[in-house]
């Protein structure tokens, strides 16, 4: 039987390449995820160990304390305990580690950086590769990586400003360069070391992260006892030996790493699932094509177990080879990502790649069992081939399915899953919705075997009239319903998930934007502390800044309001130009028409809606009509700028409102803000744009990462399409020969395969997009339900949905290229004779 197995492998090797690729890709994903996770933990450990290379004991604030401490108001416990620790006889030296985030400016470059304090020599772990340690507050060291990235040398001058405000920059001279090992974990940002005095300025929001203590000829454990006794009574700190501290912090940091790993592994599971569909489909087709061969083997005395063993043997070899390739692929991929993380633009610097043999073995085992399990059902089918089949000509075999059973199970799963999904989405919440979503999707996948061939047939009818190749393609696509369905189903999984994510994120983004627009209708507001208000020149300068699309000016004055039977009372007034205000605002702003005064009903004081109000200011008096608006801000009234000018002698311009481009990024908003602030010392910038760009950026990055991860599943599915097509081409070799003999050109043959692939891809993509939208709706409703008061509505990003459909179509057509080359390479006579 081994000879048969080897011979079979040799002949079907080409047919298994694509399947092997699917296995390798998914195994590679798993291995890369595990390896990167381990590398992250090891890097963390190494960095922390390096940080404590001279310390024996570390005093660490508990996490909660860091989170709640406001450095400006709360007293810094660590700084407080330092003198007590230093007073101990057993202590050779100790110092507090403090850190602040700053904006670093070098020439025209601005980047985020951190300033850490130069530690006392006894515990200082950083090492200089050039220069000296800073001696004054105007000196600093910078790490080697940043020095080369910014193109600096010793003696160059930089300026730094607090990251929170960006104002009050100071100049510092680079006097030393620290070696790259001192970069620290979790950040690839340039690190400056400066004297502690610099960070005593509260504008920097310095954070104390720990106290390093070096002992004087004393065991670390004993030193812990001594230090603990000295700091007893100070809340929110723990005293640990250096080794304990490393373990503790590694645990803290890789805890978040574990969550990340789990999320990544969930995506890997999707890739594995899709791969298993591709594998199963391939073996299904191979078994169908080799019916005669199996029958012959049975005729000459092979048992069913031997036939089963033949298929499983092939699967075993395929699984082993492809998984090994996948492990290699995963290590190479993880290595590439780790190398990428060491470049300047990354915010996370990973150390040397750590490959754990156990994890590699796990990846290998997953790949092999995936392949074997996926081959089980086709192997079982092979055993049902009866010996007599060898003796008669076999028509193109049809995949037999227990139709009724499958239909019932599918319908039941969809019904239960769908009902529960709606319940989860509208009443119960996220947990139920996710479970129901998975159940109903399994149902959909089962049903797809029954439904997709029908949809393909209908779609085929729509194009069949265009040309003969199109008609043949549409007939071919629905020829092996099972095969077409499982090919499409693999693609369906990917497209559904991609659509769900795209629709979900777009909806959240739009809903958040709407909310921000409603609460903060103006992108940027500029106010001044100067009592005289803005000068016209200044308003002009602000409005002329690049990136500003519209601007509106708010004038202000004090008004006395009175009416028949209502004593005069004073309220501040805002004068707006209605057209300007509407052009600037992203949601309907409170504006007054000419001759109108708008006020919140809470400020009525006896005035009635729609009646006349006598308005008196420093410059005169006028009769205006009151309009109550619950949306108006309480405690002030709104009139037109023109009306305000009539009653108030010289209203001051107190606010300038700006509308920015819809596509402005966070960096652009930042640039405009600093541009405004450079116009005058007393200007204050606010508004909704920073918030909006902040959320948009987070959501965009999230979407990008998720899509990148899902792409692997889609790529595997497209490999599956190419695979199915290639197998069908082999099977229809004689038919292709006949068609060529009858006058089908090579181009038409290629076109026929492209149309077949496009049909399958388009049907899968279409169904996937519809399903994805349904699941996105369910997910959004469930999330909205879970997070009370958050209203999320579904927004369909038509352009992105178009890209999904178009992209899948193109991928499908591309998948037909290689099989088509195979099909057209054969001369018709070779194909006909089966040579």
């Amino acid at each position: 039987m081994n000879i048969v197995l080897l011979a079979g492998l040799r002949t079907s090797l080409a047919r298994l390449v694509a399947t092997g690729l699917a296995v390798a890709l998914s195994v590679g994903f798993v291995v890369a995820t595990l390896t990167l996770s381990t590398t992250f933990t090891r890097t963390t450990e190494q960095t922390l160990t390096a940080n404590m290379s001279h310390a024996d004991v570390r005093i660490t604030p508990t996490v909660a304390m860091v989170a709640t401490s406001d450095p400006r108001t709360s007293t810094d416990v660590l700084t407080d305990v330092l003198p007590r620790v230093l007073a101990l006889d057993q202590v050779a030296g100790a110092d507090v580690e403090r850190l602040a985030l700053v904006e670093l400016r070098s020439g025209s470059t601005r980047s985020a950086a951190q300033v850490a304090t130069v530690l006392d020599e006894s515990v200082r772990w950083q090492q200089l590769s050039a220069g000296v340690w800073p001696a004054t507050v105007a000196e600093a060291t910078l790490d080697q990586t940043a020095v080369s990235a910014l193109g600096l040398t010793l003696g160059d001058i930089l300026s730094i400003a607090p990251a929170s405000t960006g104002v009050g920059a100071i100049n510092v001279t680079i006097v030393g360069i620290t070696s790259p090992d001192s970069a620290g974990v979790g950040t690839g940002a340039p690190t400056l070391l400066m004297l502690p005095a610099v960070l005593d300025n509260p504008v920097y929001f310095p954070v104390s992260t720990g106290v390093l203590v070096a002992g004087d000829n004393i065991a670390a454990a004993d030193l812990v006892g001594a230090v603990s006794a000295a700091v007893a009574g100070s809340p929110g700190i723990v005293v640990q030996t250096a080794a304990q501290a490393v373990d503790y912090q590694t645990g803290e940091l890789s805890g978040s790493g574990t969550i990340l790993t789990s999320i990544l592994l969930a995506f890997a599971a999707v890739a594995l699932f899709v791969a298993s569909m591709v594998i199963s489909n391939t073996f299904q087709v191979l078994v169908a094509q080799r019916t005669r061969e199996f029958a012959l083997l049975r005729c000459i005395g092979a048992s069913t177990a031997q036939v089963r063993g033949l298929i499983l043997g092939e699967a075993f070899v395929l699984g082993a080879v492809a998984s090994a390739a996948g492990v290699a692929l995963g290590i190479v991929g993880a290595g590439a990502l780790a190398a990428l993380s060491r470049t300047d633009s990354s915010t996370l610097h990973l150390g040397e790649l750590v490959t754990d043999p156990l994890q590699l073995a796990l990846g290998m085992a997953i790949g092999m069992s995936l392949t074997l399990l996926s081959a089980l059902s086709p192997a079982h089918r092979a055993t049902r081939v009866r010996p007599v089949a060898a003796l008669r000509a076999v028509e193109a075999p049809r995949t037999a399915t227990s139709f009724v059973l499958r239909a019932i199970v599918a319908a039941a799963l969809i019904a239960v899953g769908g009902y529960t999904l709606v319940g989860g989405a509208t009443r119960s919440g996220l947990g139920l919705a996710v479970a129901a979503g998975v159940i109903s999707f399994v149902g959909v996948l089962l049903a797809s075997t029954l439904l997709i061939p029908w949809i393909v047939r209908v779609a085929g009818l729509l194009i069949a009239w265009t040309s003969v190749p199109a008609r043949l393609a549409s007939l071919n696509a629905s020829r092996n319903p099972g095969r077409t369905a499982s090919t499409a189903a693999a693609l369906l999984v990917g497209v559904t998930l991609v659509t769900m994510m795209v629709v979900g994120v777009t909806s959240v983004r739009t809903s958040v934007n709407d909310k921000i627009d409603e609460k903060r209708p103006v992108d940027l507001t500029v106010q001044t502390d100067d009592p005289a208000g803005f000068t016209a020149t200044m308003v002009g300068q602000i409005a002329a800044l690049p990136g500003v699309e519209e601007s509106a000016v708010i004038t202000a004055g004090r008004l006395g309001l009175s009416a028949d039977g209502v004593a005069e009372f004073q309220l501040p007034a805002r004068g707006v130009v209605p057209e300007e205000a509407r052009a600037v605002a992203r949601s309907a702003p409170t504006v007054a028409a000419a001759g109108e005064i708008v006020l919140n009903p809470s400020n009525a004081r006896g005035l009635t809606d729609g009646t006349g109000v006598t308005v008196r200011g420093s410059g005169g008096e006028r009769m205006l009509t009151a309009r109550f608006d619950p949306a108006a801000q309480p405690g002030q009234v709104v009139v037109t700028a023109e009306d305000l000018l009539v009653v108030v002698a010289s209203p001051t311009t107190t606010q300038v409102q700006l509308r920015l481009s819809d596509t402005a990024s966070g960096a652009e908003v930042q640039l405009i803000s600093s541009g405004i602030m450079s116009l005058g010392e007393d200007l204050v910038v606010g508004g909704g744009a920073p918030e909006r760009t902040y959320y948009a950026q987070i959501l965009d990055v999230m979407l990008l990462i998720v899509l990148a991860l899902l792409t692997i599943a889609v790529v595997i599915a497209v490999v599956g399409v190419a695979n199915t097509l290639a197998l069908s081409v082999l099977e229809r070799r004689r038919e292709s020969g006949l068609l060529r003999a009858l006058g089908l050109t090579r181009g038409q043959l290629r076109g026929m395969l492209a149309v077949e692939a496009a049909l399958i891809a388009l049907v899968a993509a279409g169904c996937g997009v519809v399903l994805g939208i349904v699941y996105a709706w369910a997910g959004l409703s469930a999330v909205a339900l879970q997070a009370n008061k958050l209203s999320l509505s579904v927004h369909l990003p038509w352009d992105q949905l178009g890209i999904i459909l178009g992209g899948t179509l193109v991928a499908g057509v591309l998948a037909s290229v290689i099989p088509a080359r195979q099909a057209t390479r054969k001369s018709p006579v070779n194909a006909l004779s089966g040579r």
Partner: protein
Amino acid sequence: MSESQRFAASAVELRKSYGAGDSAVHALAGVTVAFPRGEFAAVMGPSGSGKSTLMQCLAGLDSVSSGQVYIDDVRITALSDRALTKLRRDRVGFVFQSFNLVPTLTARQNMLLPLSLARHRVDRAWLDQVVQTLGLADRLKHRPHELSGGQQQRVAVARALLSRPAVIFADEPTGNLDSAAGTEVLTLLRQAVSQLGQTVIMVTHDPVAASYADRVVMLADGELAGELANPTVESVLSALAQASAASPVQPATSSRP
């Protein structure tokens, strides 16, 4: 070329070799033969004599090593693949031993396939006449697996006839049929030649099938080994025996038509 006007298909010094050097196999070792219009010719010879190769080269299905092939006065050995494909669908009809029909298409669609591929209009009267002649009127909507072997082969004959090709090549058309169905198909081919003026070149190893032809061309070891006009089963059998015994170095007894 004036003489060739009379011929639907002809080959001049046709050679076809597989492999190279000492191990080369010469399937056709310089064959010159011509088939007049309106003739029902049979090509015979023992296994490995090159009869199938000759047909495939004549039909433009396979490339030749040297020599020329003419179909309807067109030198097809000089044509590109695209031009050859066009010529096949316009001027050549095929009937194969098996796997004659596209399984996904109905009988009618199969018949019209070459015309559809060429985007030519269907001559309704001609279609009706062919369908009537071949007795397929009630089978048009059936798919190949719903037809008997004889019916499938009749559909193939109909497909070949419909485009009114210069020549129909039939490769062992009765090879997979029982004798009744075989007789039926051969009678149809005979009718196509006698009544419709169609040219048919049939490759066969069956003396009974060959006896339906106007002329039998014998091949042995890739060379012409004689020919027989108005063959009968007996004359074919004796000629075959002769051809098998004949040594390839002996001068061929053929006379140029």
